[in-house]
């Protein structure tokens, strides 16, 4: 792994430019062949070969630009690079070797951590944090008036978008993994949903919950890196070398680890000709070097780590099939259970009952059934014990027993529709009788409990 990393780093060092402090900004430039590194004194023109040259600004930096260059939000628009003052408001254009202010606005300080982007001839700033509130507003720069205008949106508008991950494809702006602060106590809460804003109609729509496997608990406050690359979104969090490539059309996200990419994509980076260009700080000298990483290598990698990006209707339908199957299974299991317990009759001192039906019993009937509650097969002798009386013949007892069982069986059949007690002759001695309880019947004797 280490050898691979060294080779990889060596391979990807297209060239390096050393900078002595962090106050610089890498911007894309007009041509795909070169990019700029803006510093306080001048700027470097860096070509994709090993050529770079330093030039001084043709005009001095405007006084209003009183913050570090690295805090500006750059965006390429109509082959020009615009730089936005942190928090919104002041807008600068880098053109003809100079940084010029082009707005007639003021420092808004209303949208820190917002996303600055261009779409179809317009510059937009979305979300951010300012004046103790997270914002979900979208503001558009008016090139005629030089001021910013609020764009009215509708639909399922998220409540505040701070430090989110953004991706533009066609007329859709996808937003996810952003923070919303409670204005009362400033407590941050991460929004786990994927939202999409249609940039034609400006209607918000919630697409679903993002895969929790792409969200790291530790990264709630960690700055994120995200880049548009090959019509996909490449993103990661600062605290881990895990990267994700999201395909919004296919609802797929691929996970992979890359230490070199992690190392080189810290801070502000740009993508130029499938190369990620970023600044890396030397931990010994403190100097920064501009380094490059060939992203095309990622296209050839097979990660086998495909996950769904957000849960969608397909997931929902799968769930519904599962739910209906589960419900059916539950009904079957409960039905079988009910069949088993349904023939459990409760016997008390005076009656036998089952789910709402109750039959009053005589004393001798109760005792007879109580005997069957204790064991399912009762010998004739045991049963006779209930009927033998002093001063009465055995024949009387037999007749009484037979009549009692006959009457009891008839009563039970008419009320519950089932014959309770059957009798059988013994196989060894046909004169011996055995009484047994119907297999489907179970008697719980509550009078003895």
């Amino acid at each position, binding site marked *: 792994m280490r050898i691979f990393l060294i080779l990889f780093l060596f391979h990807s060092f297209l060239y390096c430019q050393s900078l002595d402090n962090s106050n610089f900004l890498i911007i894309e430039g007009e041509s795909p062949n070169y990019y700029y590194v803006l510093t306080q004194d001048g700027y470097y023109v860096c070509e994709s070969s090993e050529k770079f040259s330093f030039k001084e600004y043709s005009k001095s930096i405007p006084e209003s630009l009183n913050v570090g260059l690295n805090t500006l939000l750059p965006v390429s628009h109509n082959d020009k690079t615009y730089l936005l003052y942190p928090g919104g408001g002041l807008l600068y254009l880098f053109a003809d070797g100079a940084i010029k202010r082009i707005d007639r606005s003021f420092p808004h300080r209303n949208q820190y951590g917002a996303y600055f982007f261009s779409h179809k001839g317009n510059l937009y700033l979305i979300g951010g944090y300012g004046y103790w509130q997270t914002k979900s507003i979208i503001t558009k720069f008016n090139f005629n008036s030089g001021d910013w205008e609020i764009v009215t949106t509708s639909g*399922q508008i998220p*409540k505040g978008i701070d430090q989110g991950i953004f991706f533009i494809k066609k007329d859709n702006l996808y937003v996810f993994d952003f923070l919303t602060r409670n204005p009362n106590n400033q407590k941050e809460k991460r929004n*786990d*949903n994927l939202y999409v804003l249609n940039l034609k109609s400006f209607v918000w729509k*919630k*697409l*679903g*919950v993002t*895969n*929790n*496997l792409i969200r790291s608990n530790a990264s709630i406050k960690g700055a994120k890196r995200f880049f548009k690359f090959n019509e996909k979104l490449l993103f990661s969090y600062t605290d881990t070398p895990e990267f994700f490539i999201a395909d919004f059309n296919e609802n797929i996200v691929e996970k992979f680890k890359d230490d070199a990419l992690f190392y080189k994509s810290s801070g502000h980076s740009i993508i130029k000709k499938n190369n990620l260009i970023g600044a890396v700080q030397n931990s010994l000298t403190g100097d920064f070097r501009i380094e490059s990483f060939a992203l095309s290598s990622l296209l050839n990698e097979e990660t086998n780590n495909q*996950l*769904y990006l957000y*849960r*969608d*209707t397909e*997931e*929902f339908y*799968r*769930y*519904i099939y*599962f*739910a209906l199957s*589960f*419900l059916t299974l*539950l*009904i079957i299991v*409960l*039905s079988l*259970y*009910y069949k088993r*317990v*349904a023939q*459990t*009759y*409760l016997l008390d001192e005076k009656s036998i*009952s*089952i*789910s*709402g*039906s*109750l039959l009053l019993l005589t004393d001798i009937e109760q005792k007879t059934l109580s005997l069957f509650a204790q064991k399912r097969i009762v010998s004739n002798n045991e049963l006779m014990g209930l009927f033998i009386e002093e001063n009465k013949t055995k024949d009387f007892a037999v007749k009484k027993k037979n009549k009692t069982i006959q009457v009891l069986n008839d009563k039970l059949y008419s009320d519950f529709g089932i014959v309770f007690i059957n009798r059988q002759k013994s196989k060894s001695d046909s004169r011996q009788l055995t009484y047994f309880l119907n297999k489907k019947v179970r008697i*719980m004797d*509550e009078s003895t409990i």
Partner: protein
Amino acid sequence: MNIELILIAVLFGIIGFASSYYLNGYLYGAFKNNKMYDPIISRSSHKEKATRSGGMALFFTFCVCYGFGKAIYSMSIDLYALIAFIFIALTGMADDFFSIKYREKFFLQVFAAIVLLQSGIYIDSFHGIFGISEIPVWASYVVSIFVFIVIVNAFNLIDGIDGLAALLSIKFFILIGGLIAVTSTEMNLVVPSVVGAITGFLFFNFNPSKKVFLGDTGALLLGSVIAFFIFYILDNDSYIITDPLISRPLLVILLIIYPLADTLRASLIRMYKGQSPFLADRVHLHHRLIDKGMSHWGASTMILIMSISVVILGFIISSFFSLTACCFIILLYLTLLYYLFFN
């Protein structure tokens, strides 16, 4: 679907079932030892000795599952919603033990509804019904409190025969689970836990030798949790994946069609007779099935299957017809079911 999520859901279903099964058995024994049986009166559909400990067992099972969910997964329900559930469960327990008056119970339910609204999840839109979408906050509060009272009491009223309220609650939670699973990472384990808990209870509810009833604790608790999820669906901020398929208010009505229809019918009959709509009697649809000679299990499963068929019909026709036409077709279908099975 994510395998890990399925396994965790199954685990919570098992935890819910096992806890509920154990607690129902344990509480049944405790109630029995103290001879705390449900009194058998003229309106009773049972003749066996039964305890009203099911609701308590469900409540404790929810607590166990929530504790596990919070400890090992990101399970979370808004604190105000939890307070409202606990409050309503305590109200139910008080009613089970001391039989509190209806008016007092009503005010306690209103209080629980007000607490629940503090969670920020309530009905803030009619979603196009009567041409109304978003409504003012005060109207949201009034409508939400009214809906809460109706749902909670509707589930309490249908708890008249074995398994009915529990089976209809299971149906609700299982169907709602899909919406929650794709919407909320915090609440997606609530559904398997609740379904497991109710299933565990059902094994006692249908057992004649250890019969356990939900009691007011269980019926009110289930009703309030269901009301909370209905607020969640009708809250404009919630993402509901079925929006392109079916109108949210229609979906909600279909999910609880039996409790709503039965309560509405019973109230209308009582008012027609000049009686209080809150009078306890045997005019409910499920009593009709029992009086026809059906077993409790038969009547409960029949109503369950019918109510599932109404939801399926609603989903199918919503793809082809307007909302008004859908309501009309569903009304026709319900009338047909009534004349076929309940008349």
